[in-house]
């Protein structure tokens, strides 16, 4: 916003003072409202096509070439569908829930930088804002589940609350490590802190042991937070039909989907910002087009994160609700606390090569111990005998 204001303030020298400000505010909003939903729409298409290919079939390919108009057709279909509200539902809450579901997801994009200096709002408490907002989305899920007056919806809502609240903890702690390393809560500063080397790759936090662990923790948390497979238990279709949005149809359902996907994309964006160097990449310092290259790198990384999500969705089964909680509290939480300590160690060890080795060893050992403890008695390798 500030960057745009500085850019255009000069052009509007003779005009009223509020005009450039208004434009500077309007442009990011339009960008968020225009571009990210479009990304959402095509994410659904890409997801369906990719899942199709993973499952040895073509994805949607009937509406337009390569199914390019499929999202449009889906949208039209959902718009024209009958809006069904259960008779005993709490009508107002039932209506409000999908609306609220979208808002936090959209707000999350406000702190995601897409190019040097180009972030909708450069908050100095950016990361904190992101967590505050993303947790609010659970409110919508619970409202939807509660208002539907359906036992499956209720179960889904309960699961959603439990899951989102639990996964918030390791996620925030994983982010704390990054904040400690970068020394700032501002997303722009965090990206800048990853600048190192000519190609702008070497400095990414993910290439440090603590950063990698943090990345994995954060990615898992992000997946759980946005209820993506294998953590999609609030809407586990094989168990509780569609969870909190069982009783939603038509565009309200679409809004839930929109909110969920936007949250997933935003979380991917924050992951990229915090661990994968945000917009950093080769060529961003080239004059004039550097900004565009930076934006390209950002969206490329974003796309990779989304594809990883899809890939995981196409492969893994879903975990059970108690296992999910156990995993959050017994594996992720200790790891993330340890990770904070390790970042401190990293910070104070001068020799980075040595620090790399030491921290990697500590974290690896911790993972192995935690994994063995949690697997013991639960997972076993079996051999089978044959009858005579």
């Amino acid at each position, binding site marked *: 916003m500030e960057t745009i204001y500085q850019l255009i303030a000069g052009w509007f020298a003779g005009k009223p003072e509020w005009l450039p400000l208004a434009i500077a505010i309007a442009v990011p909003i339009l960008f968020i409202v225009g571009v990210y939903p479009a990304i959402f729409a095509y994410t659904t298409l890409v997801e369906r096509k*990719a899942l199709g*290919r*993973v*499952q*040895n*079939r*073509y994805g949607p*390919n009937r509406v337009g070439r390569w199914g390019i108009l499929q999202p449009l057709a889906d949208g039209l279909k959902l718009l024209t569908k009958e809006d069904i509200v259960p008779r005993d539902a709490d009508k107002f809450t039932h209506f409000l829930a999908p609306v609220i579901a979208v808002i936090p997801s959209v707000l999350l994009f406000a702190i995601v930088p897409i190019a040097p200096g180009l972030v909708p709002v450069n908050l100095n408490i950016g990361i904190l804002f992101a967590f505050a907002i993303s947790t609010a989305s659970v409110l919508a899920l619970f409202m939807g589940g509660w208002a539907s007056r359906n036992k499956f919806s209720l179960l889904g809502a309960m699961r959603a609350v439990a899951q989102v609240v639990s996964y918030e903890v390791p996620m925030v702690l994983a982010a704390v490590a990054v904040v400690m390393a970068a020394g700032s809560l501002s997303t722009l500063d965090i990206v800048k802190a990853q600048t190192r080397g000519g190609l702008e790759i070497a400095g990414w936090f993910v290439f440090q042991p603590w950063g990698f662990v943090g990345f994995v923790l954060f990615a898992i948390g992000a997946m759980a937070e946005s209820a993506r497979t294998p953590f999609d238990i609030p809407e586990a279709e094989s168990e509780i039909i569609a969870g909190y949005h069982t009783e939603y149809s038509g565009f309200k359902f679409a809004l839930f989907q929109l909110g969920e996907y936007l949250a997933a994309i935003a979380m991917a964006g924050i992951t990229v910002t915090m661990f994968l160097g945000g917009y950093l990449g080769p060529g961003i310092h080239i004059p004039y087009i550097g900004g565009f290259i930076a934006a390209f790198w950002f969206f490329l990384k974003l796309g990779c994160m989304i594809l990883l999500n899809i*890939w*995981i969705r*196409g*492969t*893994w089964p879903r975990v059970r609700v108690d296992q999910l909680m156990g995993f959050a509290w017994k594996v992720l939480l200790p790891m993330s606390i340890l990770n904070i300590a390790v970042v401190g160690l990293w910070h104070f060890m001068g020799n980075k090569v040595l620090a790399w080795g030491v921290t990697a060893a500590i974290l690896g050992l911790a993972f*192995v111990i935690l*994994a*063995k403890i949690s*697997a013991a008695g639960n*997972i076993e*390798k079996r051999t089978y005998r044959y009858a005579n």
Partner: protein
Amino acid sequence: MGFLGKGLFQGMAVTARNFVGTYFDRGTREKLVTYQYPEEKPPLPENSRSFPFLVYDGTPDAMRCVACKICETECPPQCIYIVMDRDEKGKPQQRPKVFDIDISVCMQCQICVEVCPFEAIKMDNDYEKSQYGRFDDLIEHLPDLLKSNEYYNEIKPTEAKAVDAKLKAEAEKKAKKGTSKPAAAAPAKPAAPAPAPKPATAPAGKITIPEDAPFTAEQRAWLAGFLSAGGVATSGTGVSPVAVAETTGETPVPLPEATPAAEAPAGGWPWHDPGLGMSQRMDLVKAAPLADKLMAAMAQTDCHACGYDCRGYADAIAAGSETDLSLCLPGEAETAKKLEELMKEAGKL
């Protein structure tokens, strides 16, 4: 077990392999198996079956179906409905007037095809039968069902060739037996009723051939000669000697060699003609033994619906080894009634 999570990544490797594999499939359908249906259709194997159709030879009039109703009775979900064609006087015409198959009920089990003794009903390959209407559109009527033998040869070459060969062999066998029926009407189906020209000389025998009897001129001429020569419808071959001896009170007239009767049908049963009406057939056997009378009451299609041919069923009833009188499906209730009547007359019931 390796490190925890190894299995997860192995799985991801498998899915990635399949994902990439679909782009290098190039039509082998190893990885990308889908047929894009309306544009490309999977090739159907020859045995493939959808719904039944009726085969005809040459023209739709020459259908093989004789309306014997075996398929109707045997059809497990009862989706076939047949009404035999009759002329104004109520004589059966050995062809269906109505032949409906309700494809909303048909379960494509092929049992009708298996039980048909006339090779008249076969399974089609056409599975695109969806309709907009729930009721009438889903009933296939006789004109929809009739398909030519060429079509059958086209969709199921091997099977059709075997059927054709079998029918040809049967026809030849029949021809060898000396049937006067023209060999052209080879497939067990009698020729469609041709307008019968009035015989030039009405024989002075006891039995006159009705004008509307569905005989060809040739048949009519033979029959006239046969009747005038033999007097009573008997002949040697095929009938048990006892039956011949008991034919009438009088000694059976030995058939002169020169008369057309020498070419008489192998069975030598003039009533064994599905074209005749029940009353005409009964007329022919007025003085015949019980077995012949019983036989004349049958529908004369030799359809084996009862498990015998017409002769065998009559003999079995007469001999008392078969007690069920309602087995003649093509004859419908008429035959059953007549059989009962005859048995009562004979004092066996």
